[in-house]
């Protein structure tokens, strides 16, 4: 099957299994290789739309996507918002920020209120693990987890896989290091599941205090030194480091962390020519990644951002546009040529 943007526009987009994601996208957990590949393949069609002069199709016209963010975010919210608009969905935004709602009071009420605006899909971010799962049980709308505490961030993993696949064809056999604060990283948890499901080998690298307490059952190896690994990596994935890890007694200083685990210019120079450098953003230059590494030709950080929109279009389309809905408008396209 080869999906094209034109198919998406006129509603005949052929999706092998429109229900591949089920009702919600709460995590990578539970998705197998075939499901991940189907989403990535569909993403190609939406990436093509993004390259057009007018990157917009009516696929989700009349549908409403609500971003419900209980935690500050600029990038992820913009990415989902852009994806929804390119599919002609209406968007509404709820931001709890630092209001009392972020303390959890009336969480269910909030969701019911958002639902009453007619949202068909909620994009939820929350600082505590599992909140998107809970919300999915309280609403008729589809729910996409846009990051729940230290748990999962599935669309980030999908866009990372898409980026790796775009550059290398497939993830099979790749050796990928995920470096830094794995313990607190939802990006790491989702990527461990996604990378390994697609055939890559994952090594988690960081100080012992920043590893999850028990990773015995995870399909990964753990290393506490980065230097011995550099030459053998196909990709190095750097996680954002938070300053509060010092006051929590997890590391002695940012300087020591940067010295031991940061992708410095010297370490970048030791990476293979075909190695890829990834980061979920926003970066802390000079901490987990040097300015040189970020600007290195092997860095695909900006590709990740661009691919994020395409992947999220695919996810929104799968959850709202195919099978679920009054769905895709079959009337002729307007102002769009392919």
């Amino acid at each position, binding site marked *: 099957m080869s999906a094209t943007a034109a198919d998406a526009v006129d509603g005949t987009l052929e999706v092998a299994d429109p229900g591949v994601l089920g009702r919600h996208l709460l995590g990578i957990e539970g998705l197998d290789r075939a499901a991940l590949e189907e989403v990535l393949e569909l993403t190609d069609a939406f990436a093509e739309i993004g390259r057009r002069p007018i990157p917009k199709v009516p696929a989700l016209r009349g549908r409403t996507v609500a971003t419900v963010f209980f935690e500050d975010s600029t990038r992820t919210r913009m990415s989902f918002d852009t994806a929804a608009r390119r599919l002609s969905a209406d968007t509404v935004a709820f931001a709890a920020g630092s209001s009392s709602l972020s*303390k*959890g*009071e*009336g*969480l*269910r009420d909030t969701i019911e209120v958002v639902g009453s605006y007619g949202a068909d899909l909620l994009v939820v971010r*929350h*600082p*505590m*693990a*599992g*909140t998107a*799962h*809970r919300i999915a049980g309280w609403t008729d709308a589809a729910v996409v987890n846009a990051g*729940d*505490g*230290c*748990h*999962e961030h599935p669309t980030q993993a999908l866009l990372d896989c898409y980026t790796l696949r775009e550059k290398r064809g497939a993830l099979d056999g790749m050796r990928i290091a995920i470096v830094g604060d794995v313990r607190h990283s*939802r990006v790491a*948890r989702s990527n461990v599941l996604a990378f390994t499901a697609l055939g890559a080998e994952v090594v988690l690298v960081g100080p012992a205090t920043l590893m*999850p*307490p*028990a*990773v*015995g*059952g*995870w399909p990964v190896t753990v290393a506490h030194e980065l230097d011995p690994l550099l030459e053998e990596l196909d990709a190095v994935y750097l996680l954002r480091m938070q300053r509060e890890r010092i006051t929590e007694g997890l590391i002695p200083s940012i300087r020591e962390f940067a010295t031991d685990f940061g992708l410095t210019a010297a370490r970048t120079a030791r990476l293979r020519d075909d190695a890829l450098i990834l980061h979920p953003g926003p970066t802390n230059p000079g901490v987990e990644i040097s300015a040189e590494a970020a600007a290195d030709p092997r860095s695909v950080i900006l590709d990740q951002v661009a691919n994020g929109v395409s992947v999220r279009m695919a996810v929104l389309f799968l959850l709202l546009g195919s099978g679920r809905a009054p769905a895709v408008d079959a009337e002729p396209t307007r102002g769009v040529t392919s």
Partner: protein
Amino acid sequence: MSVVLKGGRVIDRTGERTLDVEVGDDGRIAAVGTGLSGDLDLDASGCVVSPGFVDLHTHLREPGQEEAETIETGARGGSLGGYTALVAMPNTDPTTDCVAVVDQVRNLGRRSTCEIVPSAAMTVGRHGADMAPMGELVDAGVGIFTDDGTGLQDPRLMRRVMEYSVGLAGRLGRPVVLAQHCEVSALSAGGYMHEGEWSSRLGIPGQPAEAEELMVMRDIALVRLTGAHMHFQHLSTAGSVAMVRKAKAAGLPVTAEATTHHFTLTDAACASYDPVYKVHPPLRTDADVAAVKEGLADGTIDAVATDHAPHAPHAKERPFDQAPPGMLGLETAFALTLDESGLDLPDVLAVLSWRPAAIAGVTDRHGADIQPGAPANLCVVDPDETWTASGAAMASRSLNTPYEGRTMRGRVRHTIRAGEPVVVDGEARR
């Protein structure tokens, strides 16, 4: 009005026999025998007549959080669960740390369907800084002191409370019991479930077993130093059980309880992210569950307690970190202990009735042998009846049972409190 429990198997500390039990107007057992009848005859055939149950660990929420539970509703749930006495935890608002609140709790209890046995805080406001007026409280009849909800962190103050309590035994007429919620808060802070494979996978920050075990270890050392009677609340880890076993073997005056949820549920339940499974200490691993059952089997753990902790529904609809810890327990304790503890029926009754009665210092009224003249605090249980738990059907003002929809075996049919049939055929009479 006389009541006769007809044709049941009577089981108490002395053993088992099949007899009718007649309860007189004076709230005492009038007669045991065959062919008895009274103003009200209650069928106990196929059932077991036991001394009423005693819960060492009940949060009744009054005063202060009547939205979640009141002494009246909590006691009704207790009666439905076969309990005739409930030890009320002092984490009320205001804290039960002075005679005025103790009197209030006890007085409200007198109108309820259970005997409410107030415990009091070890420290003022449960802040862990200053000793509560323990002498005054002992003179008001308090025999159990606890800062439950938190452990007393400062080892120096804990030592002083222990020493002071030893000196109060004469005034109380028996040893004062100090009940500890073992949790070193510096290690548990920021953890919302058991730390291990499940917490790692779920991304919920965990608290290690060692947060409990370090305080068990400390308090055993301080018992050795002071001779105080320490009761360990809700033991939940294999390491804790092993330490208490060793302390008992060494002859130290320690006792322990386990809750029903710590031998029937594991941390895997948190995978639903439903805070109904959030509790302190947290649900642990299969190995810990097995160790708790072993502790019950060999007597290391003296009693099953509920840690009945009602929370209003909206409170449990918060995110996992912000939802309060605790779960309902009074109405499911008998069935769960019968079904899952691994104990034989007589031992089930022992850990629910006369053993906790001894720790609570109420053996003159509860857990007593069933014979003429004994106080009529009794329950009649059907060990074969199966039923399905439902929070909405429970007497509690709250719904937070972790056993919603679970079918279990063993049901309380009748409960007699001070001679009054407060539960008849599984229904509360008031």
